[in-house]
C-alpha cells in the first residue's frame, strides 16, 4: 500500500491501532463517546429541561421564568385559567381541551384519508407494476417529500386561497363554499404533506404478501373484495399501523400548516403562540407534554399490533 507517512508517525498509528485491537472495549468506548455524549448533552438534557420547565412558572409582571415548582401549568391546561376550580364543565370547556380534541380529530381524519389514498398506489407499485416501472413509481412518490416542506405548505396556501385555483374549480362546479383559511384547507394540506410517509410502509407490507396466498384465496372461491378484506388487510395490518404512526405523529406536531392555511388553533400553533406571543415557555412546555403522552399511548398500542417490524 502506498503511504506517505514518515516512520515516526507510522509506528505511533500502528501502536494506537494495535492497542485498540487488543482492547475492543476501549474501541467501543471511543466510537460511542461522541454520538452518545451529543445525544445525552444536547437532546435528552433538552427534553428533561422541557419537562422541568413545565413545572416552573412565569411571573406575569416581569415576564421572567421563576424556578418555583408547582402544578399550576397543568391546572391551567385542564381548566383554561389558573383561578378556575377543576370541575367537569371547566375541563370540558377549557380552551386547551378543545384544542387537543380538535387536533386529535384532524389527526384521525388525515390518517384515514391518507391510508385510503396510499393503498391503491402502494398495491400497484408492489404487485402490478413492471420491474422497470417500480423504481420510477417509488421515486415519484418520494420526490415530493424532498421538495421543501415549507414550499409545499405554501403551494396549498395558494391553491386554497380566496381567488385561487381550488376556489375557481369549485365555482365552476357550482359549489359556493369558501375553503380559504378553513379546517378543510388544513385537512387537505396535511393529507398532502404526509401522503408519501403513508405510501412507503404500505408498499413494503404489500410486497411481503406471498402471491400464492392470494391465488389460494381465489381458488377457494373468494371474490376480489373478500380476498381484500380477509387476506390482504390482515396481512398488511402492521404496515397500515406503521403508516398511521407517521401521519398521526406528524399531524400532532405541526404548527406551520395551521398558521399558513388555516385560522383555528391546533396543539402545534397554540404552543407556538404561547412561546412567541405570550413568551410563556413554562405553559408551552406543559402543553408540549400532551402530544408526547398521546404518541406514547399510540406507540404502545402500535407495538402490540406488530407495527415495529414493518417500519
Amino acid at each position, binding site marked *: 500500500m502506498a503511504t506517505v507517512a514518515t516512520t515516526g508517525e507510522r509506528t505511533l498509528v500502528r501502536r494506537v491501532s494495535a492497542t485498540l485491537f487488543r482492547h475492543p472495549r476501549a474501541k467501543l468506548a471511543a466510537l460511542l463517546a*461522541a454520538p452518545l455524549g*451529543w445525544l445525552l448533552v*444536547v437532546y435528552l438534557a433538552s427534553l428533561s*429541561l422541557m419537562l422541568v420547565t413545565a413545572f416552573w412558572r412565569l411571573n406575569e409582571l416581569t415576564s421572567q421564568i421563576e424556578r418555583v415548582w408547582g402544578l399550576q401549568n397543568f391546572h391551567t391546561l385542564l381548566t383554561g385559567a389558573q383561578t378556575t376550580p377543576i370541575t367537569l364543565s371547566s375541563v370540558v370547556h377549557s380552551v386547551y381541551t378543545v384544542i387537543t380534541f380538535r387536533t386529535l380529530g384532524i389527526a384521525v381524519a388525515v390518517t384515514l384519508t391518507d391510508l385510503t389514498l396510499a393503498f391503491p398506489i402502494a398495491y400497484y407499485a408492489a404487485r402490478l407494476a413492471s420491474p422497470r416501472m417500480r423504481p420510477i413509481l417509488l421515486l415519484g412518490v418520494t420526490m*415530493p*417529500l*424532498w421538495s421543501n416542506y415549507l414550499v409545499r405548505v405554501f*403551494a396549498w396556501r395558494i391553491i386554497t386561497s380566496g381567488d385561487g385555483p381550488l376556489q375557481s374549480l369549485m365555482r365552476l362546479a357550482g359549489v359556493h363554499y369558501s375553503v380559504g383559511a378553513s379546517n378543510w384547507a388544513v385537512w387537505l394540506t396535511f393529507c398532502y404533506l404526509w401522503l408519501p410517509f403513508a405510501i412507503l410502509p404500505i408498499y413494503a407490507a404489500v410486497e411481503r404478501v406471498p402471491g400464492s396466498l392470494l391465488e389460494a384465496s381465489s381458488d377457494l372461491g373468494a371474490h376480489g373484495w373478500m380476498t381484500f378484506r380477509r387476506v390482504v388487510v390482515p396481512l398488511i395490518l402492521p404496515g397500515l399501523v406503521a403508516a398511521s404512526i407517521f401521519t398521526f405523529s406528524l399531524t400532532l406536531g*405541526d*404548527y406551520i400548516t395551521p398558521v399558513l392555511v388555516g385560522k383555528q388553533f391546533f396543539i402545534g400553533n397554540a404552543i407556538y403562540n404561547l412561546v412567541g406571543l405570550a413568551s410563556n415557555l413554562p405553559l408551552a412546555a406543559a402543553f408540549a407534554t400532551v402530544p408526547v403522552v398521546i404518541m406514547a399511548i399510540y406507540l404502545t398500542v402500535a407495538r402490540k399490533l406488530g407495527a415495529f417490524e414493518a417500519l
Partner: protein
Amino acid sequence: MESRLARIVIKVGTGITLLFLYTPLVILGLYAFNKGITRAWPPDLWTTRWFGAAWHDPDLRRALLGSIEAAVGATAVAMLLGSCAAFAVHRFRFFGRDTISFALVLPIALPGIVTAIALSSAINFGNQAFGLTFSIWTIIIGHATFCIVVVFNNVVARLRRTPTSLVEASMDLGADGWQTFRYVTLPAIRTALVAGGLLAFGLSFDEIVVTNFTAGAKLTLPIWIFNNIRLPRQQPVVNVVALVLMVISILPVYLAQRLTGGAEAVSGAAKAAAQGPGA
C-alpha cells in the same frame, strides 16, 4: 388474483394519488412566472423578472448564506457522529445497543414541536446559566441532532451488507487497524456515507419547525420564506424562491439515490425524514 374490475379500481386510485401529489407542485411552478402580484387564478403568464428581483434582494442572500452555513455545519457533525454510532452498533454487541438506535431516532420520531420546545427551553436555560445566545451555532446544534440518524441509517445498512471477511483478510495480510479502515472499510462505505451526508444536507436545508425556535435573529431560507409569506408585496419573490428551493432540494436526494442504487437511501431517509419536517 386481481379481477379486471379490481385492476381498474387500483389503476384509477394510483392515477388520482399521483395527480394529487404533483398538481400542487406544477401550480406553484406556474405562479413563479406570474406577472401580477396577486394569487388570482389563472396566473398572468409569462415573466421572469421576479427571478432578478429575488437575486438582488440582500436579505435573501443573507438567508441563503445562513442556510448553507447551517447545512454544512450540521452535515459535518452528523457524518462524524452518525458513522461512529454505526460502527459501534455494527461491530459490537453490548448492553443497551437497541436503546441507541431508538435514542437516535427520537429527535425525528417525536412530534416536531416537542423537539423545538425542548431545544428552546435548553437555549433559554443556557442563556441564564452561562450567557448562551441564539446564533448560527444553536441552529447547527439543533439540525445536527436530527441529522445524525440519517447518516447512521445509511452507513449501518451498508456495513451490514459488507462481508466482515474483507476486514479479516486485510488484517491477516498485515495491515494495521488504520490501514484496514483507510483501504478496505472506507471504500466499502464511502458512497453510503456520502449519500447519508447529502440527505442530512437536504434535511437541514429544508428545516423550519425546529429552526424557528433555535435561530433567534439569524436568517435561513425557510425562515425568510416563513417571515415573508404573509406579506402581499413580497408574494412574487416568495413564489420564485419556492420554485428554486423546490428544484435544488430535490438535487441532493436524486444524487443520494444514484449513489446507493435506490431504495436503501430513500426509504431509510423517508423513515427518518419526519421532519420534515418536520421533520
